[in-house]
């Protein structure tokens, strides 16, 4: 019984960590430039495929992970420069554009890669025993890597110049501009960093689950749920919400209905949006005027 509990918890944390990795990109982009980027999920999908092709080419998983992050960072920069920069004043246009982008990317991928699921051999196989608890090694690894990435990102925000710029923008955009923060550069950095994280999440997902061209939609929705739960624009909020959601799903699937797994998140989202519009941690308040 206790074993079960820990097992479920670990699963929940692992999944939650992955979700949080995706959510960070979403919450930052929305919090700072007001764009709800639906295409974020596609970065996850592309990251997964990059890892697939990297391992198929014999370059190994870790290289694939790094490659996924770099490629997605570049892709994010490209999108920001070419597309999103034009929609900065108009969040609805940003949303609409990102919907269009999903259609393009997802279906091109489906056409190019075919909808057949692909699989990647995970770098770690087997399991690890801690006392009488048995954990899948790969899942543990994913949890560790996700945690490291989140931690690294947090440090990036605290310590680097650009990271500070991001935080300044999050608090007061005009003020940040006034003190010399280069808004366009920081925005580009946010897109790049968020996309890199999404790519990494995709790579990690690939080591555990099947890869399909449509796999981006679920992490996307979960990412939105987290970003909203945690308060749009709040990094610690997204992280905490990520683990919360992961746990909720894990326990819900284990003890209630498994096939309804995704539904728990949606219920949480709807409930939060209706009753706690600023998320569990109350980040940005919506000004009425």
């Amino acid at each position, binding site marked *: 019984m206790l074993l079960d509990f820990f097992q479920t918890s670990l699963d929940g944390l692992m999944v939650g960590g992955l979700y949080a990795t995706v959510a960070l990109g979403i919450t930052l982009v*929305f919090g700072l430039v*007001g764009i*709800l980027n639906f295409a974020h999920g596609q970065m996850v999908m592309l990251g997964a495929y990059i890892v697939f092709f990297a391992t198929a080419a014999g370059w190994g998983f870790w290289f694939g992970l790094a490659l996924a992050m770099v490629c997605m960072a570049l892709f994010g920069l490209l999108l920001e420069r070419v*597309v999103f920069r*034009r*929609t900065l004043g108009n*969040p*609805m*246009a940003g*949303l*609409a*554009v990102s*919907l*269009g*982008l*999903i*259609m*393009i*990317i*997802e*279906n*091109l991928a*489906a*056409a190019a890669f075919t909808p057949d699921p692909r699989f990647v051999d995970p770098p770690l196989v087997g399991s690890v025993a801690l006392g009488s608890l048995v954990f899948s090694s790969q899942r543990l690894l994913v949890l560790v890597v996700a945690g490291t990435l989140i931690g690294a990102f947090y440090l990036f925000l605290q310590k680097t110049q650009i990271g500070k710029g991001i935080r300044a923008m999050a608090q007061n955009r005009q003020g940040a501009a006034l003190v010399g923060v280069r808004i366009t550069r920081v925005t580009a950095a946010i897109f790049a960093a968020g996309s890199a994280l999404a790519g990494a999440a995709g790579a990690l997902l690939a080591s555990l689950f099947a890869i399909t061209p449509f796999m981006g*939609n679920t992490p996307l*929705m979960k990412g*939105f*749920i987290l970003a*909203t739960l945690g308060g749009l624009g709040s990094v610690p909020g997204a992280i905490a919400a990520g683990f919360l959601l992961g746990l909720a799903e894990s326990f819900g699937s284990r003890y209630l*209905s498994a*096939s*309804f797994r*995704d*539904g728990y998140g*949606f*219920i949480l*989202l*709807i409930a939060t*949006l*209706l009753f706690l*519009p600023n998320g569990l941690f109350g980040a940005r308040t*919506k000004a*009425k*005027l």
Partner: protein
Amino acid sequence: MANATDRGAAGEEPIPTGRPRKPIDWRGIAPLSGWLLLLALAIVPIVVDSRYIVYLGTLLALQAALATSLNLIIGYAGQFALSHAAFYGIGAYASALLVSSSGMGFWASVPVAVMIAVTIAIVIGYPALRYTGGIHFALITFAFGELLRLLAANWHDLTGGPQGMQAPYSPEPLLGIDFSTGRGQYLLAAAVLAFSLLVVAAIRASRIGRGLTAIREDEVLAASLGIDVTRSKLFAFVASSALAALAGTAYAPFMGFISPELLNAGESVSMVGVLIVGGMGTLSGPIIGTLLFVAIPELFRIARLYRLVILGAVIVLAVLFMPDGIAGLLKRWLRRFGPPRSSAGEG
């Protein structure tokens, strides 16, 4: 300007000369000819003897009806509702369930299904619309749509689960029309489209309609002038969702089969895309968008994947460069070539 008649010499009977020529009012003619063209297109499936054309026509009519009703909430009220496909599904499932399990006739099930949709729309819409800034609303409707789909896929007893359920019935004959034939189904779909257009046009011309466009332009300003913003938005949302459900009731007997995929958020997104491209805020925009993005690919058998890629690309381009869509573009051309506008133009 010369008089229309000239007096003949010495006060005889006036000799009529030609009336001064008015410049051709393209502005007035173009929309009218557009509607005539649509009417002509609409008649095609009735007279042509091809099952495929009839099938295509029915599909198009339903899609156009969906686009038209979606226009009400997105184009006129300016709120991004991503739950439209879900309400389409609610209409389909509700009426199918009512007909198959309780023996209710089709025509009786329609108003019930629509009322169910109305209730759900109010329950979801009211809290969701309390917030300004449509992002929350977009998210809630998106999540709601997906939630419904999951419910439909998992509630095996009620809905048959992911395999969907059969809808092996047809509407009872009405006005001498047999709705079990392809043509009959087409007429039903066309009627749904016509009804949706009428409702949207009526709303647009009314106080509420003016209020909605005002809200779309600047909702804070609208509020300061006495417009109840939340109530207007809710009205638009409920009306558009109810019309979507209506279309859904026609879908079930047409396809004979409904599955949870009908409620797919991806479908809602496509509908929004069609609207963006065709032009929101006009009556013709949704029709143009549907013709372009459903009819043409269907006719040329372009694979669904590529169809979506192209739609996606056009959406991106449209949002960036053509914010009023194709219909908006046409409107602006006409404005340039026609006499000065007198009042809110027809779209």
